[in-house]
């Protein structure tokens, strides 16, 4: 069917015309031609070559077929198709039938024939013997008036007994029992050059599918569904060049493509009726298979079309050699060379360090440190081998290129031998300038452009200006970032530098950073205090944890003191207090969250290690310098109060001992108690104001935490006051909790219990 079939077919020895004429002497020509003609007339088929038949007679005799049934099975209907390489045999089904008849006839005339090729076929003959109609059932029987009837006028012999004996004997004849061969047969009829059978090339003798046969009239309309296939085939025929080139691949494709087909139905029924039934089922399957074939051809056609395209293109493949490619690549890599991947590819370096702890090798940059060694080398060992060696190879190549480039004198341009023009170097660092923006005029306040160049000595620092405006605050924040980035980089490179030199740089940068924080600016010159202004910008908040990592204890203490002293000026305090309706803008709530997540944690850490004296001092300052009733309405204000209160309580109970702090002196505890009482007295009757509005969605846990911290340090009397004040809220919350979903209710009760537990109570004890 497909040309894959013909790939086999054309080389089949039995179809060779030489063989067809061989051994003529061993059989009487009369006998054979008589048989043949008889068959041809009966079947309405035309074999067109009576004399070419001669050598077959002796081959049709066979003996020693006693075990055929065992070998090939009794039931030919169950023959699978796993051996059916192409399914092409289907179309010679009729041939097989004819051949069966022929065989039967011949057996009568030459019972002792010794035909090797046909020895496997007694079963078929038995079947045919049983069948009364024999040939008449065959589709060919319906063509009694076929003009091809006369064997002498039609040279083609697609039904050559040998061909099916080889190919067909293993197959139950299936679908195309008449369509294709018949069409072909008819087509070739009109070809005058077929008059002389012995000279036929084998491929023409074989039952060719229409597309590959010699050009002839278009297929008849007998089986209209075939037209599609044939069209495709004819199209393919036009591409004979490619086809030949690919024959082996095609054979493979054909084998693969056809293996999955269902076994064809048997056509040899026991009775006429059964046969008809089968034929009906058969027609169905035929249609299905045809469909499959159409699909197959479509697939095959596409594949071949692609192959053809590729072949067309292949003519000039490799015009650009590997050398050329490498050369271009080298030029480009040389533009990427950097001494400092941390500066040039900062984001990637840090991102991978943070995110992909099992870090990827840093191939994007070519630091001498990026190759081999260290943590990276260790990680690489875990990778699979193939990519590891590949990596290594690339790394080595890159390193070599990089070193080559480094050896050459530094310049912004590089002219390469043979290259047209000059190639700009460092194009990332040194982009083509399109805009000429002068930075001098925009930087009147401070020469930020060179913050490391001792700008603060040359340019008057903010402090001497006195009042600090928002613009200066922003400038300061950027300067803080600059210092922090430097410090972080310095930390990363700690091992690479001499210790004392490193320490010197480090201290210098910390001092610079500290200066820019404006913590030590005098209070009262600007309002709010410049440091508070810094903390009121979100990027100022964000930088604090990174700043504090480089601060010593004294700086810490100064910083928190300054913060506490000016607390109510903080944006997260002054703007984050709801009015009577408790509405706070989302942007401010975001700022509060940011402050709680960035500024508070390091300070909490500091306070958690501070001695009572400092805690006491901070709380005193807090109370003295701020309107504490007001501050206590803000979340951050309560967070600070809670922080001081709980720390003091821990220290009072000797918790500092674990941290190596001496037990607080009696005097210190007394002082603390005084401060506490002061706080309590100020907040008394205002405790309820700390809560967010009852119906708001704000989680009030921080208030309960604060109340718990208050309750723990309170006297019996103070506890009583506290309970009386917030009693309503407690009850409301518990009642509310009974009406809302379980998980939310649990959270509410837990919050209330924070406070109640501090008093030795529990929400479950409350009677509502």
């Amino acid at each position: 069917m497909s040309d894959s079939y013909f790939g086999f077919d054309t080389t089949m020895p039995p179809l060779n015309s030489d063989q067809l004429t061989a051994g003529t002497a061993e059989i009487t020509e009369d006998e054979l031609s008589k048989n043949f003609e008889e068959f041809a007339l009966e079947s309405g088929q035309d074999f067109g070559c009576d004399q070419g038949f001669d050598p077959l007679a002796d081959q049709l005799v066979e003996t020693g077929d006693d075990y055929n049934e065992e070998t090939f099975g009794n039931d030919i209907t169950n023959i699978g198709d796993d051996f059916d390489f192409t399914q092409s045999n289907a179309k010679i089904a009729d041939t097989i039938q004819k051949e069966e008849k022929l065989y039967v006839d011949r057996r009568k005339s030459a019972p002792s024939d010794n035909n090797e090729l046909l020895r496997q076929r007694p079963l078929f003959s038995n079947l045919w013997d049983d069948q009364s109609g024999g040939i008449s059932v065959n589709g060919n029987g319906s063509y009694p008036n076929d003009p091809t009837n006369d064997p002498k006028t039609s040279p083609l012999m697609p039904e050559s007994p040998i061909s099916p004996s080889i190919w067909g004997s293993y197959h139950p004849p299936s679908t195309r029992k008449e369509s294709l061969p018949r069409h072909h047969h008819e087509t070739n009829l009109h070809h005058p050059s077929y008059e002389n059978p012995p000279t036929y090339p084998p491929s023409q003798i074989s039952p060719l599918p229409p597309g590959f046969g010699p050009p002839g009239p278009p297929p008849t309309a007998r089986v209209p569904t075939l037209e599609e296939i044939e069209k495709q085939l004819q199209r393919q025929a036009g591409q004979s060049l490619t086809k030949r080139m690919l024959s082996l691949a095609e054979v493979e494709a054909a084998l693969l493509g056809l293996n999955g087909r269902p076994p064809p139905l048997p056509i040899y029924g026991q009775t006429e009726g059964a046969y008809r039934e089968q034929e009906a089922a058969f027609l169905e399957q035929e249609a299905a298979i045809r469909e499959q074939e159409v699909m197959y051809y479509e697939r095959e056609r596409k594949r071949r079309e692609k192959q053809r395209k590729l072949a067309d293109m292949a003519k000039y493949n490799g015009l650009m050699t590997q050398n050329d490619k490498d050369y271009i690549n080298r030029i480009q890599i040389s533009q990427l060379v950097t001494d400092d991947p941390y500066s040039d590819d900062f984001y990637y370096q840090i991102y991978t360090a943070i995110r992909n702890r099992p870090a990827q090798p840093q191939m994007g940059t070519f630091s001498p440190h990026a190759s081999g060694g260290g943590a990276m080398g260790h990680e690489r060992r875990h990778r699979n081998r193939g990519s590891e060696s590949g990596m290594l190879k690339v790394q080595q190549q890159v390193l070599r290129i990089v070193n080559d480039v480094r050896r050459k004198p530094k310049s912004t341009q590089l002219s390469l031998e043979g290259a047209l023009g000059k190639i700009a170097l460092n194009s990332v660092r040194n982009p083509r300038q399109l805009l000429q923006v002068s930075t001098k005029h925009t930087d009147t306040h401070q020469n930020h452009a060179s913050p490391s160049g001792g700008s603060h000595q040359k340019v008057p620092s903010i402090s001497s200006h006195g009042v600090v405006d928002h613009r200066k605050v922003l400038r300061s924040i950027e300067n803080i970032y600059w210092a922090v980035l430097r410090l972080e980089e310095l930390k990363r490179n700690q091992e690479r530098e001499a210790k004392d030199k490193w320490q010197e740089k480090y201290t210098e940068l910390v001092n610079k950073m500290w200066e820019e924080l404006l913590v030590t600016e005098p209070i009262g010159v600007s309002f709010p205090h410049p440091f508070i202004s810094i903390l009121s910008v979100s990027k100022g908040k964000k930088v604090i944890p990174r700043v504090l990592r480089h601060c010593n204890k004294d700086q810490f203490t100064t910083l928190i003191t300054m913060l506490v002293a000016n607390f109510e000026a903080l944006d997260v305090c002054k703007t984050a207090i709801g009015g009577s309706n408790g509405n706070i803008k989302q942007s401010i709530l975001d700022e509060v969250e940011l402050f709680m997540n960035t500024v508070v944690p390091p300070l909490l850490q500091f306070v958690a290690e501070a001695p009572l004296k400092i805690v006491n001092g901070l709380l005193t300052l807090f109370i003295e310098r701020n309107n504490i009733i007001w501050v206590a309405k803000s979340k951050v204000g309560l967070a600070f109060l809670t922080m001081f209160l709980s720390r003091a309580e821990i220290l009072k109970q000797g918790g500092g001992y674990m941290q190596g702090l001496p037990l607080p002196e009696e005097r210190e505890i007394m002082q603390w108690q005084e401060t506490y009482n002061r706080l309590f007295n100020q907040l008394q009757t205002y405790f309820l104001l700390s809560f967010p509005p009852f119906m708001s969605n704000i989680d009030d846990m921080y208030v309960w935490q604060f109340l718990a911290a208050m309750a723990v340090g309170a006297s019996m009397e103070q506890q009583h006051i506290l309970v009386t004040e917030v009693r309503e809220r407690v009850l409301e919350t518990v009642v509310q909790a009974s009406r809302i979903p379980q998980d939310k209710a649990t959270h509410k009760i837990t919050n209330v219990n924070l406070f109640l537990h501090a008093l030795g109570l529990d929400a479950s004890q409350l009677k509502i």
Partner: protein
Amino acid sequence: MDNYLQGQIFTTSASLVDSVDRKLLVVLRDGRKLIGVLRSFDQFANLVLQDTIERIYVGDAYGDIPRGIFIIRGENVVLLGEIDLDKEDEVPLRQRPVEEILSAQREEMEARQKREKLRNKLLHDQGFSVDFTETDLY
């Protein structure tokens, strides 16, 4: 993604090298679409295309003009894409003779200019500045 690959492709050339000897579509800044086989390139992404055709698209139809070999200066390239050899014959577009497609293109352009003129007039009447004419925006 394989780290190995990730490490490898970081230059223009490395990302173009796979497309050499493949059939490409190249879109130029003036909107022209060229289809040909990439034979060579350099560090500026200047390209050499062989067996090039210029393909003109109008609506769901297209027409081809054979052009031969192209050396394209890199700066004029908008994008280049490898053509899926299986898919290219399946696109739901009709091929038309060049003359037909060229006249269709002309019509399309004139229609657009008309539209633009009308719009500009309306805008102008409303007091907008209409110096700006729509180009390919590069």
